């Protein structure tokens, strides 16, 4: 498939998805499925995950597995909180980046210079991140310090002042045309308006930055000389070395940037909360890593993974009822699948004996049909899911998508390989 073709397929897929969502919204009456609020929340949850994922992408494209994203993110949050309350948001941003980068540097020293197993180093950083920050809080934020007077506690920093939110003029602010359209609840129109408004209203400046980092990463990694070298370090560092590429340097840069991105994810969390709160990363580094793998080590896929997760999380937090519409959603998807299968079965012009009409195919169709019926039944009967099942919506959804999506994941070939200059095994 050519590049343009792929691009079109993606666009078509998105269009079909929105159509489907609109349909489900109308049928279920759950406006939150495409409300601007949901999409704004989705964006807010997707960004830190996406940033962590981007961090993972940079490191792993250069051949270094980074399971330490969580620890680096924690360092980012603490540094942002600490610098932010004293010198404002810009300082918070810089400090958070530095905090994450420091974690990245540690990871780089261990994995690149000493050839330590990447997972071990990452796990150690995941221990160190919370340990060091807690220690720093215990020292710097304890009773009687200036910070404590400014509102710090051992688990929180003082608040950062300053708000960095922007909206798209006219469309989603002031006259707020999109908002008005959304309120009509018209089929498809309101959905599109809601989605657009959610993504443009009251958006944190960091969000814009983070979203821009995706194409930027794509550009740098796939369209510049530096990016080619970086990726070559993840595919075949020995080849790169033999062509005079300084693989060590490249890996160092990549892993430090990786840490900085994870740190930026932390800064984002701090900006949203206006302060550092111990434990506020809540495993997002791991989820970012998962999003990156989900996205096949590519920025676009990663964004899709982070968005899926963010959307599901946002939706479940905003509207537990809407979560049951996923049953309907699944039922409709299964129905489409069934129609396609049956059509293929009937329209085949091959000699009858050649059509792969094994028992297996009938079984799949039967299972799909059964699944559809069950989902529909669930949708019709389940008033309210126990809360515990609502919380896990994003996780279950991620698993389901992974199960259904064909698995042709391809990680960089030398990812996780401990590379030593001049040695090839």
């Amino acid at each position, binding site marked *: 498939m050519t590049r343009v073709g792929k691009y079109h397929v993606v666009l078509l897929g998105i269009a079909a998805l929105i159509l489907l969502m609109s349909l489900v919204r109308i049928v279920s009456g759950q406006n*939150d499925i495409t409300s601007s*609020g949901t999409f704004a*929340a989705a964006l*807010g*949850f997707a960004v830190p995950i996406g940033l962590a994922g981007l961090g993972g992408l940079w490191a792993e494209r250069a051949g270094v597995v980074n399971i330490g994203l969580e620890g680096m993110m924690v360092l980012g949050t603490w540094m942002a909180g600490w610098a932010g309350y004293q010198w404002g948001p810009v300082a918070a941003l810089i400090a958070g980046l530095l905090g994450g980068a420091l974690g990245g540097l540690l990871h780089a020293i261990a994995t690149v210079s000493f050839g330590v197993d990447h997972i071990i180093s990452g796990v150690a950083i995941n221990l160190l991140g*919370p340990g060091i920050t807690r220690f720093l*809080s215990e020292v710097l*934020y*304890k*009773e009687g310090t200036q910070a*404590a007077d*400014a*509102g*710090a*506690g*051992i*688990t*929180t920093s*003082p*608040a950062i*002042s300053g708000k960095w939110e922007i909206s798209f003029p006219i469309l989603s602010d002031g006259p707020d045309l999109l908002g008005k359209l959304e309120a009509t609840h018209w089929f498809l129109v309101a959905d599109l308006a809601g989605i657009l408004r959610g993504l443009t209203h*009251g958006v944190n400046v960091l969000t814009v930055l983070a979203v821009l980092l995706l194409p930027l990463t794509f550009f740098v990694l796939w369209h510049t000389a530096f990016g080619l070298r970086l990726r070559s370090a993840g595919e075949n560092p020995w080849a790169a070395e033999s062509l005079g590429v300084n693989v060590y340097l490249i890996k160092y840069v990549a892993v430090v940037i990786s840490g900085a991105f994870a740190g930026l994810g932390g800064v984002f*969390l701090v900006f*949203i*909360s*206006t*302060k550092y*709160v*111990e*434990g*506020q990363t*809540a*495993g997002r580094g791991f989820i970012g890593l998962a999003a990156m793998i989900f996205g096949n080590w590519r920025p676009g896929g990663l964004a899709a993974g982070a968005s899926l997760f963010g959307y599901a999380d*946002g939706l479940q*937090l*905003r*509207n*537990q009822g809407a979560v049951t519409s996923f049953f309907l959603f699944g039922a409709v998807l299964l129905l489409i699948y069934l129609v396609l299968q049956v059509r293929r079965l009937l329209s085949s012009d091959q000699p009858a004996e050649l059509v792969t009409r094994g028992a297996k195919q009938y079984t799949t169709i039967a299972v799909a049909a059964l699944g559809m019926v069950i989902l529909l039944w669930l949708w019709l009967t389940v008033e309210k899911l126990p*809360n*515990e099942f609502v*919380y896990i919506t994003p996780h279950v959804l991620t698993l389901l998508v992974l199960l259904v999506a064909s698995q042709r994941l391809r990680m960089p070939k030398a990812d996780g390989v401990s590379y030593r200059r001049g040695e090839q095994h």
Partner: protein
Amino acid sequence: GDGGGTTASEAPTGGASSEAPKSALKVGLAFDVGGRGDKSFNDAAYTGLEKAKTDLQADIKELSPSADGSNRGDLLRQLADAGYNPIIGVGFAYAEDIKKAATEYPEIQFAVVDSASNAPNVTGLLFAEEQGSYLAGVAAATKSESGHLGFVGGVESDLIKKFEAGFVAGVKSVKADAKIDIKYLTPDGDFSGFKAPDKGKVAAEKMYQDGADIVYHASGDSGLGVFQAAAAAKKKAIGVDSDQRQTVKETDLQSVIMTSMLKRVDVGVFEFIKSFQGGAKGGSNVTYDLKVDGVGLSTTGGEIDDIKDKLDAAKKDIVDGKITVPAKP
């Protein structure tokens, strides 16, 4: 719940009069996960402890458990071995551990915050959060113009459900047809719900968008997000545990905090130490309810001054037993 024990108004009697040798008072306190400096529950307990230090010249020691809370029992033992008596465990998670430690150290007096006494030398320091929350509900419903309110709970544990139950009852007592949105951030066992301002914000935002004009939170640090959502929507919120209009430092957020439901853990802790000094023994519960002002509403900012009568009436009804506030939703 008033597990058949005394209430606080009786407990301290005789405490202040009989002065024990002050230097001998060594009070140990073990925090819940998160430890000191959480600006909330643990810190409130510490305030009480500190007061004992200054007022009663107590020798104090406070310990925080490890992040996974696996060593709560061991902290209690270490305090006991170091000669501390009495020893206080902060948080209902200490219930089991206190019970065991109490049997191992029968000569030492223990207290547990938020859980009932379960041994002869254990005092249960209980708080009638549902009563305070009831008042918060009354205040919210009275102040609400839309008749639509919200509650954000941090972690879906039975403790936080007490807040929910009281709040709902309070609201319904004023407006039986009021709409109340309820959302918890994480399931029981995942305590990140107390540390997720972003989630609190999204949950509250939705409530405000749907027309709620006052949201009550019992979600620790996540409440910050609730206040932010309130500020953005130009609506109101109700804080919890301490007077958050004072503890929250951002001025733009302070103004959205209509009131806070106070839970005087500091009073509980201090009173317990004081009564210990007076020779009180455990085996019963002390309930800090509206009657003894163990719970209540803060008035900083004066936003509920105009409905003071109504609140006082509700309070009186509860104190008099005319109203029994449910502790479970």
